[in-house]
């Protein structure tokens, strides 16, 4: 029979529209408006999964996002989503869900044997049970724990949907659209304030939809619908459904997740799955309501045990009977509503068990009218049944518990009282305080522009909610700078007092020990709290970490206050003495995809392309990422060409003839002003005051701690005009460094500068025939006399304006031409055209690297932030007679001492074997296992076509004085040892004759 637990009428579901779905492979039907939980309950399905540690059968506890137990795997394939609350999943056609953490099946779970071994899994078991022997960790413990404990499994395919991020400003934000939130929105929106009202449910109204309230003479849900319609029609109101505020951050910034498409089989075309919102509200009103807490009795985790409010929510909102014979257990007046509502829905309410000795007389009369039995001064001591509740064992709360009364039932609807949802208030930096009158925590003093109202403030009467909402909405608008609103609160029928008397833990029948769960998702029992307390973990924060209470995906929404109170009982102190743990975002589990938003895959980072990129692509160049830049790494010429084939060919072509390389990604900074030279003089270790116009100079910058920061050439183009280049990696940091010193330390210097990296395309023309090639297209005299090594100047290349620099990274006769980026590709093509008859070629960053290693130029791998100019053999550049950044700290004794790592060249003594970056340099006479024997390491390697062997640069202790020594280069990860010879880092043309030719 289908939906045998559905009431004959009532509920805010659309009975005309049937929806079919499957759970654990079995097909069911529900109605539009159902959640997965309500639809399963309508079909009599309570068993939802197995618990985390003990694999106990678990069912539905709640009707909202606080659910600890009914968590399922939703959907299949790439859209599979583990650990999803059945109580918040809106039913859609074709929905597929699966229970979790069971094997081989939900009804028979082999791991339930953990239940018998529970003494091994008690508080702190992570620290006690799996300690030794160490060898068991990877092979046994980790394997077994991973399999036995845990929740759902993550999907293995990429998420096909996309996620969005949005930002919005408003004057008043109201979180939660129950009676308080709606009242606040109506009041705030009656001014001109921009109002955002958001709620996590698809239907606005909060408890007005799940309770039988009456406001202004109308049913509560009708009043809510009218209020929503009124707000919807206003231009200054943004209503958001299916939106949960999950984080309250500094400076009143809050974040929410909007589940745009989760209620659909797949998102509509062009729609995101979910959206993350960052809001900048002037004022925040937290009308987040309250969460009911369970009673802590034996076997209180059995399917069929449910929160009292959840039971009536299923009846009222979804038209579902959560059982046929119900026992209501309570310590307050509120749960009497469940008795009345369940009775009205056709559930046989066999007893109301009230732990208070003297329940309110009005309620007693109401039960009498319906012939519902009331047992005062008693509570449920334990639930009976294997996979579902069969009976409740009733014990008295005072005196004898040896002889419980047994009441047969299939539903125990229990209320331990209500906890205001102070999570967001706590996240905002405020401290909740304990309120004895409701035996729970209420908001304390505000730290940010927020206020809590209604049930979130501990005011549980409906009229209070309406009054506080109206007042808070008007006040918030006023504080945000708007004219006060004059609006009257709606009036509700008196619901009577709440009148709670604390009952933190139930007496156990027969004095037997039952498992009494506090945190059902992490399987933490009252006995674990006691044990942790005995072992000294008796502060709230320690207890949480030792027992893992509150650390599951539900963040302990139903368990935190019970745990603290039980701890207080253990310590024999009042609850406020124990304190409360700090709530941290997110309030609900948020998918990583939402935080990533659009920045995934191709859009993860911006891509910077040079003007020559398209040409490179057409040539089939293989690219490498250099920061955000894509640079051509090498150019395969024929099928099967390896990287080695390419860079060796490209290097040989450069050194024997002429070749071009795209060097656009180097940072370029244009510097102008009368004090430009003085500015450079302070930034660089070398002297800049006497650099003539038309000359370039290689410079080294230090950090303030004396370590080398960056290097590059800077040219003087005119009297007060300089043009700096930086390494690709440091283009941004060098600019920021210059800005900081100019703005904070030397604002008196009359100099301006800005990055022009993207304005200019850089092309290096290198090789013995480079002058011959350039002479064909450049309009200035390139003879060695007219344009010598380190010359710089403006020129025209055919009709393209440019700047020419005679600088060389390759060690060959070479030039670098910069042209405006829009001419970049044209300049490249014209150079190739002009050099065609000479056989000009191109090279990528691999050949560039090979030639720089052969020439012994240091680069990023040697400028590792730990090397000084002296370490790099560049101390000769420094002018210590002037002031420069890093001067003083580079003179610290330890940096001048012997024993520092210094740059060296290394030659492989093994034929046909290249060296490896990261290999450690060790004395061949010392055994490998000896500690502390590394004398340095290799920073850059290549095969040298010039030397016809593997060469490298490295950093070696006192390396400058050790040329000629033989060492071992060891790479222990691959058990590789190669013999190397230490040499001068400049392998070719040490006198620099080529570059000056």
């Amino acid at each position, binding site marked *: 029979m289908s939906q045998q637990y559905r009431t004959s009428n009532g509920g805010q579901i659309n009975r005309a529209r049937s929806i079919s779905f499957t759970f654990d492979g079995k097909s069911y039907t529900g109605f539009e408006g159902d959640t997965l939980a309500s639809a399963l309950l309508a079909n009599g399905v309570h068993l939802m999964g197995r618990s985390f540690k003990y694999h106990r059968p678990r069912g539905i506890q709640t009707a909202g996002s606080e659910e600890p137990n009914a968590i399922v795997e939703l959907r299949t394939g790439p859209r599979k989503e583990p650990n999803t609350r059945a109580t918040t999943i809106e039913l859609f056609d074709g929905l597929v869900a699966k229970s979790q953490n069971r094997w081989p099946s939900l009804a028979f779970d082999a791991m339930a044997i953990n239940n018998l071994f529970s003494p091994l899994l008690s508080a702190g078991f992570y620290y006690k049970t799996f300690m030794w022997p160490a060898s068991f960790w990877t092979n046994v413990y980790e394997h077994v724990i991973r399999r036995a404990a845990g929740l759902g499994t993550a999907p293995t395919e990429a998420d096909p949907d996309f996620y969005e991020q949005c930002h919005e400003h408003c004057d008043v934000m109201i979180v939660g659209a129950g009676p308080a939130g709606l009242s606040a929105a109506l009041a705030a929106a009656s001014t001109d304030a921009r109002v955002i009202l958001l709620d996590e449910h698809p239907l606005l109204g909060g408890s007005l939809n799940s309770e039988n309230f009456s406001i202004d003479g109308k049913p509560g849900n009708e009043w809510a619908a009218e209020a929503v319609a009124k707000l919807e029609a206003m231009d200054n109101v943004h209503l958001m459904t299916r939106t949960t505020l999950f984080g309250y951050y500094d400076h009143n910034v809050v974040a929410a997740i909007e589940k745009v498409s989760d209620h659909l089989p797949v998102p509509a075309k062009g729609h995101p799955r979910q959206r993350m919102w960052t809001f900048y509200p002037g004022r925040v009103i937290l009308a987040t309501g309250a969460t009911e807490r369970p009673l802590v009795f034996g076997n209180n985790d059995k399917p069929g045990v449910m929160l009292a409010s959840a039971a009536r929510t299923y009846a009222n909102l979804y038209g579902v009977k959560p059982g046929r014979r119900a026992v209501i257990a309570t310590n307050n007046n509120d749960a009497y509503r469940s008795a009345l509502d369940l009775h009205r829905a056709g559930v046989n309410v066999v007893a109301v068990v009230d732990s208070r000795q003297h329940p309110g007389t009005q309620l007693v009369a109401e039960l009498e009218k319906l012939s519902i039995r009331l047992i005062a001064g008693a509570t449920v001591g334990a639930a009976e049944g294997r996979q579902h509740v069969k009976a409740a064992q009733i014990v008295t709360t005072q005196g004898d518990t040896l002889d419980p009364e047994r009441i047969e039932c299939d539903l125990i609807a229990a209320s331990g009282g209500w906890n205001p949802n102070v999570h967001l208030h706590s996240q905002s930096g405020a401290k909740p305080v304990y309120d004895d009158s409701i035996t729970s925590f209420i908001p304390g003093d505000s730290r940010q522009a927020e206020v809590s109202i209604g049930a979130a403030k501990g005011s549980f009467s409906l009229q209070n909610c309406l009054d506080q909402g109206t007042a808070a909405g008007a006040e918030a608008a006023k504080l945000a700078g708007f004219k006060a609103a004059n609006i009257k609160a709606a009036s509700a029928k008196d619901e009577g007092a709440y009148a709670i008397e604390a009952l933190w833990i139930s007496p156990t029948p027969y004095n037997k020990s039952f498992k009494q769960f506090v945190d059902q998702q992490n399987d933490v029992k009252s006995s674990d709290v006691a044990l942790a307390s005995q072992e000294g973990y008796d502060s709230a924060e320690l207890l949480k970490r030792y027992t893992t209470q509150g650390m599951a995906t539900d963040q302990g929404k139903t368990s935190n206050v019970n745990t603290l109170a039980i701890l207080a009982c253990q310590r024999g102190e009042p609850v406020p003495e124990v304190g409360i743990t700090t709530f941290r975002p997110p309030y609900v589990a948020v998918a990583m995809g939402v935080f990533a938003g659009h920045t995934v895959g191709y859009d993860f980072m911006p891509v910077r392309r040079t003007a020559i990129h398209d040409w490179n692509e057409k040539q089939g160049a293989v690219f490498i990422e250099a920061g955000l830049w894509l640079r051509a790494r090498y150019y395969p010429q024929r099928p099967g060409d390896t990287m080695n084939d390419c860079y060796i060919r490209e290097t040989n072509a450069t050194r024997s003839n002429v070749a071009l390389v795209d060097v656009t990604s180097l940072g370029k900074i244009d510097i102008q002003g009368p004090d430009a030279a003085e500015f450079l003089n302070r930034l660089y270790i070398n002297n800049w005051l006497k650099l003539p116009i038309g000359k370039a100079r290689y410079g080294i910058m230090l950090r303030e701690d004396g370590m080398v920061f960056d290097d590059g050439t800077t040219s003087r183009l005119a009297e007060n005009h300089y043009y700096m280049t930086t390494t690709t990696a440091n283009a941004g940091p060098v600019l*920021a460094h210059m800005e900081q010193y100019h703005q904070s330390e030397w*604002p*008196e210097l009359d100099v301006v500068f800005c990055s022009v990296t993207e304005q200019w395309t850089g092309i290096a023309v290198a090789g013995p025939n480079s002058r011959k090639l350039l002479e064909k297209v450049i309009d200035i005299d390139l003879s060695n006399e007219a344009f010598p090594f380190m010359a710089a100047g403006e020129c025209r290349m055919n009709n393209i304006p440019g700047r020419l620099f005679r600088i060389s990274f390759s060690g060959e006769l070479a030039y670098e031409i910069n042209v405006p980026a829009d001419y970049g590709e044209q300049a490249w093509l014209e150079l190739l055209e002009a050099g065609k008859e000479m056989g000009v070629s191109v090279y990528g960053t691999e050949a560039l690297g090979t030639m720089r290693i052969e020439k012994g130029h240091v680069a990023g791998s040697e400028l590792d932030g730990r090397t000084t100019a002296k370490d790099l053999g560049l101390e000769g550049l420094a002018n210590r007679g002037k002031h420069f950044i890093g001067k*003083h700290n580079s003179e610290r004794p330890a940096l001048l001492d012997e024993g520092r790592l210094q740059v060296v060249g290394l030659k492989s003594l093994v034929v046909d074997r290249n060296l490896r970056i990261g290999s450690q340099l060790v004395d061949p006479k010392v055994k490998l296992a000896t500690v502390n024997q590394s004398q340095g390491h290799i920073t850059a390697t290549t095969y040298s076509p010039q030397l016809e062997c593997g060469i490298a640069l490295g950093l070696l202790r006192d390396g400058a004085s050790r040329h000629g020594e033989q060492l071992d280069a060891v790479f222990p990860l691959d058990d590789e040892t190669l013999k190397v010879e230490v040499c001068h880092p400049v392998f070719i043309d040490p006198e620099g004759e080529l570059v000056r030719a």
Partner: protein
Amino acid sequence: MLRIECPWCGIRNEDEFSYGGDASVQRPTDDASQDDWYDYVYTRNNPAGRHSEYWHHANGCRAWIKVERDTVSHEIFSVTPASPNLPSGNRED
């Protein structure tokens, strides 16, 4: 999320800025002692409370600014240009 009022651009999100270190330390003069220079680079207070720090409006106007911030509550008391010798920002202009 801190919201920092750039003297030139107005209130902007923290992620437009990058942190630039302690602004309470004074860069020594060139003739200062080695110890002063050492302290300037390495010795820092770690106050719980009011703290003066540099921020760089890196994804904005590129200004370096000094922010007086409470390191516990994150309250921001003042934001000024990095150097008092720079003309102060005037957004009304």
